[in-house]
């Protein structure tokens, strides 16, 4: 029988374009210390550390957990480094939850970070190597054709992406840790930003951020030290190959399968009704309606209606990314964990100005690679 697992501490850095005030070690410590403080815990009490980040070439340090071991208080302890492309922040939290669910450890620090200013992500993504197709367009260029396919097949109006881009930036104004603070942003501001990869304009895209996010996960008996733990109801991970004939890249089966397993294990039959708030990995605006469908919040080709009707807005019936999401802060490796942590903050009633009233059940979601790696969890305020 699996042990229960709960989030009892969350910590984030202030995310920004260039955190030149801290080293990588300083950045991860900033998040870890806040999580420890939130959990009312000391370094000594941590049994193990699970760290995740996206490609090492994004900073130019190979397996950086080795040099970060000291800063993470891991000396003499087990430390693991997870890497599952853009979903890594979510996968890392899930691997940490396995250590608790499996009864291997009682108190685990999990952390994800990216310090994009140390190198250049789009350069790292553009390297030509033998045996592989060159990806010379960066992430936006890769995903734009998939978005065009979505628009064509769903018949979504052109301004859905713009609505998401505005909504998430306005939400970010409620989040003190968010990177972008775009007071007064309107649909016009987005539409006047330069076209990068049709239909994605500059403001349809996520920023490049430095940042870290940490959580303390524990077994049931260690939850007593905090007032409101977030119980991990269920987790799910799925992967599928990046290319093969007939693959649906708009709504990948790996995402649908992961969501189905997630809801089954969490005892959720109607996600739109039973989940109060969702933090979903939306690095390009159009991915909000696409993931609404993939996650089962909307029927096929109807996700855009949720955005259009305001259902995903902060005061909608299914608020998506009240924190401002990846569109407002994107330390890539940490972006997935921030989704997971924000979900936990919501059910703990800790989200401050972006708290969704009465949130009891929340979804955290991340994806990566060519829309092929999925990690998600459902957390709740009541013990499962």
């Amino acid at each position, binding site marked *: 029988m699996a042990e229960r697992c709960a989030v009892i501490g969350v910590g984030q850095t202030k995310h920004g374009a260039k955190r030149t005030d801290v080293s990588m070690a300083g950045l991860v410590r900033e998040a870890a210390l806040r999580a420890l403080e939130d959990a009312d815990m000391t370094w000594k009490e941590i049994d193990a550390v699970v760290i995740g980040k996206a490609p*090492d070439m994004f900073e130019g340090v190979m*397996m950086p957990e080795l040099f970060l071991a000291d800063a993470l208080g891991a000396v003499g302890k087990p*430390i693991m480094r997870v890497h599952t492309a853009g979903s890594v922040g979510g996968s890392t939290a899930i691997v940490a939850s396995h250590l608790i669910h499996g009864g291997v450890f009682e108190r685990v620090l999990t952390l994800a970070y990216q310090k994009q200013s140390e190198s250049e992500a789009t350069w790292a993504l553009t390297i030509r190597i033998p045996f592989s197709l060159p990806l010379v367009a960066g992430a936006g260029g890769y995903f734009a054709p998939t978005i065009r396919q979505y628009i064509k097949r769903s018949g979504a109006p052109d301004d859905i992406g713009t609505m998401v881009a505005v909504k998430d930036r306005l939400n970010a104004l409620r989040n003190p840790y968010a990177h972008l603070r775009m007071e007064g942003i309107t649909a016009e501001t987005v539409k006047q930003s330069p076209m990068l990869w049709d239909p994605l304009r500059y403001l349809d895209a996520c920023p490049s951020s430095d940042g870290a996010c940490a959580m303390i996960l524990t077994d049931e008996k260690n939850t007593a030290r905090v007032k409101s733990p977030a119980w991990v109801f269920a987790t799910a991970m799925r*992967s*599928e190959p990046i290319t093969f004939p007939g693959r649906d890249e708009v709504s990948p089966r*790996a995402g649908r399968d992961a969501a189905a397993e997630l809801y089954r294990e969490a005892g959720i039959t109607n996600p739109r009704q039973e989940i109060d708030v969702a933090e979903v990995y939306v690095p390009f605006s159009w991915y909000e309606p696409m993931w609404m469908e993939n996650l089962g919040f909307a029927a096929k080709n109807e996700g855009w209606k949720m955005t259009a009707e305001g259902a995903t807005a902060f005061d909608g019936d299914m608020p998506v990314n009240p924190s401002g999401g990846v569109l407002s802060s994107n330390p890539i490796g940490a972006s997935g964990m921030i989704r997971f942590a924000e979900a936990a903050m919501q059910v703990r009633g800790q989200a401050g100005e972006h708290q969704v009233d009465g949130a009891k059940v929340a979804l955290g979601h991340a994806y990566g*690679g060519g829309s092929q790696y999925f990690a998600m969890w459902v957390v709740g305020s009541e013990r499962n």
Partner: protein
Amino acid sequence: MRDVAVVAFAQSPSVRQDAERSEVEILTPVIAEAIDRSGLPRRDIGFTCSGSCDYLAGVPFSFVQALDAVGAWPPIRESHVEMDGAWALYEAWVRLQIGDVDSALVYGFGKSSAGDPRDVSVAQLDPYYVAPLWPDAVSLAALQARALLESDGYTERDLAAVVVRNLRNAGANPNAQVQGEFEQDELLEAPYEVSPLRKHDCPPVSDGAAAIVLAAGDLARAVCERPAWITGIDHRIEAHSLGARDLAKSPSAALAAEKAGIRRGLVDVAELHAPFSHQEIILREAMRLGDDVTINPSGGALTANPIMAAGLIRIGEAATRVMDGSATRVLGHATSGPCLQQNLVCVMEAR
């Protein structure tokens, strides 16, 4: 803890440069062989986890293509560590503890030949204070060897003895890359690579891959005559700063071995991931492995060192001794980081 065992192991031969094949092409037959040996239908594998490193291939997301070797359709429960495959095995073992899935595929792969691993590994040092000095992997290992020779009464003859035995053992291992019959004196006539290490004290540059299938409880018993039951597995890390460590010792290996329950019985065979000859001595001392323990019957990482797979191969080689009936209690070890910074110990037994 739930009973979990190694039920199948496969590896590619390690070669200096597998120029004709991509990582996926090296992996595909290895994974197929491991799954075939396990007797489990591929679709029934409950969890998959791999270990690899982008810096070997020189490209981000180098593990993504490897999914093609697994056959991830319908989509699978899968994860990846930017570590040796031994840690992927640890993650899979943890996953199997939860109890809802009963089997896992684990693999590790590395084409070290894509670059010069001696220099590439500099990128894993502290980027602010150490890496700019560009101390390469062999130079750092030599520092450690020097620390050992000056602290514990060992001599260069002892290093040569480690090399003689591993090269001889490799003669019986068709997957080893280098082998041979040598005398200590003969080896000691060779020039230094970086004093006190000679070329034969250092690992070869290898391309290769390995895969293991784990199964829990009754499933393991059903698919394998003599499963190698994992009775303890643990890993620990030390400080990164070389100046903060006593390089002649390995407290993290000692602690991992203790937590893995090494003292709860005799060990017949230990496969130690010691890419440099002196590291085998340090690890034996840390884990207090006496002369009664057979060390590295495969020839070890001194004779085949596909980075990111070499640690997993140690676990596979040790498990094979249990599965083929030649040993009862064995130990597989993996290391990561400069000068044995991080160590994993996996104790396996016959039942």
